[in-house]
């Protein structure tokens, strides 16, 4: 029967996606970029909306929330998956509100104003059925996908405002967004880039090769030399894995040291991060390593391997005080403004899936 086929097809795809996520984390699968991850998640969510069986917005949200929970449990360090799920949940809420005819303002955040003027402590239960809800939601998800496709270009377009001729820019490791950013500026300006190699994976080497291919003068330095070289640097431009709700970052290991060195020399620290990396998590104290920091065995002599514990965390926390500017696909923002952007992207009830 066609209905049953669609169901099994859908569950197969979801299982394949989850397996992919798990493999990507353990280091055996291919290392995917977050942009790709975000796009795949959104495709999957669109498919779920189209093919799963649901009658009201509440049902759809439950289904998506459950799948979202499973996906984030499969790979907790990949936050873009959770972010996309929350975006889609917000889209569903908005479309539902629009179908009901109520203005979008009423569904928004808790605020003092709402405290005073709202009616009963009503529970919005999303039980009403609307005929066009499915089509509207899918259309909105398509818009989201267009936005995702354009993020790198939107960020790169802002490059000329920030990079001037004869400047020395420092970057760390490899970020596709920063690479596009610098390449776009290189079309019209001549500047010098210093790349910190970022051991132990040394992704900085790939970055340097990529940049020099378009004619940018690039220098690779060891991580230990970052502080020494910082006095000659005009700007530090880096990417990140996640932007946290308080304006801090979860970035590749070593970024906090770069941020501190930049603060010491009063060098501006600019982060190029698309909006889908914005996550409602907050950094909760330094007791535990970040979920998803896995140990990779450093090339260590075999004799001492049994006597030594090797820890190699993958991520670092950078507090918002060290950051100067966030450049995202919607423009430049200060770290203290991140909470506002987040309130526009996600609904507070979805913060915890």
């Amino acid at each position, binding site marked *: 029967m066609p209905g049953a086929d669609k169901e099994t097809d859908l569950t197969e795809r979801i299982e394949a996606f989850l397996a992919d996520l798990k493999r990507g984390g353990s280091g055996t699968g291919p290392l995917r970029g977050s942009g790709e991850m975000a796009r795949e998640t959104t495709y999957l969510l669109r498919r779920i909306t189209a093919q799963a069986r649901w009658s009201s917005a509440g049902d759809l949200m439950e289904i998506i929330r459950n799948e979202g929970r499973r996906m984030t449990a499969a790979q907790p360090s990949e936050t873009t998956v959770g972010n996309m799920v929350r975006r889609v949940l917000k889209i569903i809420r908005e479309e539902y509100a629009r179908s009901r005819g109520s203005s979008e303002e009423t569904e928004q955040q*808790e605020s003092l104003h709402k405290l005073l003027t709202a009616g009963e402590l009503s529970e919005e239960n999303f039980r009403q059925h609307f005929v066009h809800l499915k089509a509207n939601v899918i259309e909105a998800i398509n818009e989201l996908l267009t936005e995702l496709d354009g993020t790198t270009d939107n960020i790169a377009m802002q490059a000329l405002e920030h990079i001037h001729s004869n400047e020395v820019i420092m970057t760390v490791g490899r970020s596709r967004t920063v690479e596009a950013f610098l390449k776009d500026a290189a079309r019209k300006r001549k500047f010098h880039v210093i790349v910190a190699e970022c051991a132990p994976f040394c992704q900085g080497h790939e970055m340097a090769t990529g940049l020099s291919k378009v004619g940018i003068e690039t220098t690779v330095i060891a991580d230990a030399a970052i502080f020494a070289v910082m006095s000659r640097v005009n700007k530090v431009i880096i990417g990140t894995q996640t932007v946290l709700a308080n304006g801090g970052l979860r970035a590749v290991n070593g970024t906090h040291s770069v941020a501190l060195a930049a603060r010491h020399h009063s060098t501006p620290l600019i982060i190029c991060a698309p909006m889908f990396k914005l996550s409602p998590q907050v950094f909760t104290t330094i007791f535990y390593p970040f979920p998803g920091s896995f140990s990779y065995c450093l090339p260590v002599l075999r004799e001492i391997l049994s006597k030594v514990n090797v820890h190699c965390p993958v991520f670092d926390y950078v507090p918002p005080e060290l950051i100067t500017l966030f450049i995202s696909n919607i423009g430049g923002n200060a770290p203290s403004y991140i909470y506002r952007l987040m309130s526009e992207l996600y609904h507070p009830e979805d913060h915890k899936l």
Partner: protein
Amino acid sequence: MEARMIPVIRSLDTIGPSMLLCSLLPCSGETILGLRESLKWATDCLTEVDSSVAVSSGGELFLRFISLTSLEHQDLSRCKKVMEERGELFLEKISLSRTKVAKLCHTFIKDGAKILTHSSSRVVLRVLEKAAAEKKRFTVYVTESQPDTAGKQMADALRRLNVPVTVVLDAAVGYVLEKVDLVIVGAEGVVESGGIINKIGTYQMAVCSKAHNKPFYVVAESFKFVRLYPLNQQDVPDRFKYKADTLRTVSDLSDEHPMIDYTPPSLITLLFTDLGVLTPSAVSDELIKLYL
């Protein structure tokens, strides 16, 4: 009207003013202006008795309520009815707010944490109760908080929860901070800049935490947001700094000890309110949304 006020004043707490104002609604004037006048008068009487920031902000918020309601309904009796209903709702929401704050904050307390807190705060107590209920093990250091030694009451309450607690001198804050993992304080008022007004000694604690790089968290309900923008300690109005009877009886205030101080937003890491986890810069946003 005055006769009815006296028993309420005796059992005053921060929710008191709203309850009082709610109870006044049935009696007063024939016009909205009259109603507003009597409510203003009631708030002034209350602040004469207990000059805390929370009373002032709670009262103002309730008055704001009135002006928003009066715009919607022309007929006075219907207006009063709606105000009463909304007043009840307001009280209900406020009593839930401490629970919401506790739910948000307790996840920041990890197993084995050592927490420093200042004086006695019911919201902090609720947060620690929730953390203890979640079977987390933590120890608490409470400052004694002169001149009223309110810290001892906090310590007693925590001992009843079987939480290991130590009372330290106010002067020992710097000494104890190296052992501590995080600092949580309550607030009597949250000002527009995102800073807080709290028992004297809080500013000191905040400066020391910054020096030691320890997170400084503030827990406060949203009705404590107040429309003040102090730039330094002098800017905080005298009516909040000193007790009401001190202001009445003493002529030269320079000999008196202030009861509260102002902590600027640069020293605060995060604010936990029933509106969510806010950075200090988000506070003014919230206030603007209300008052515009």
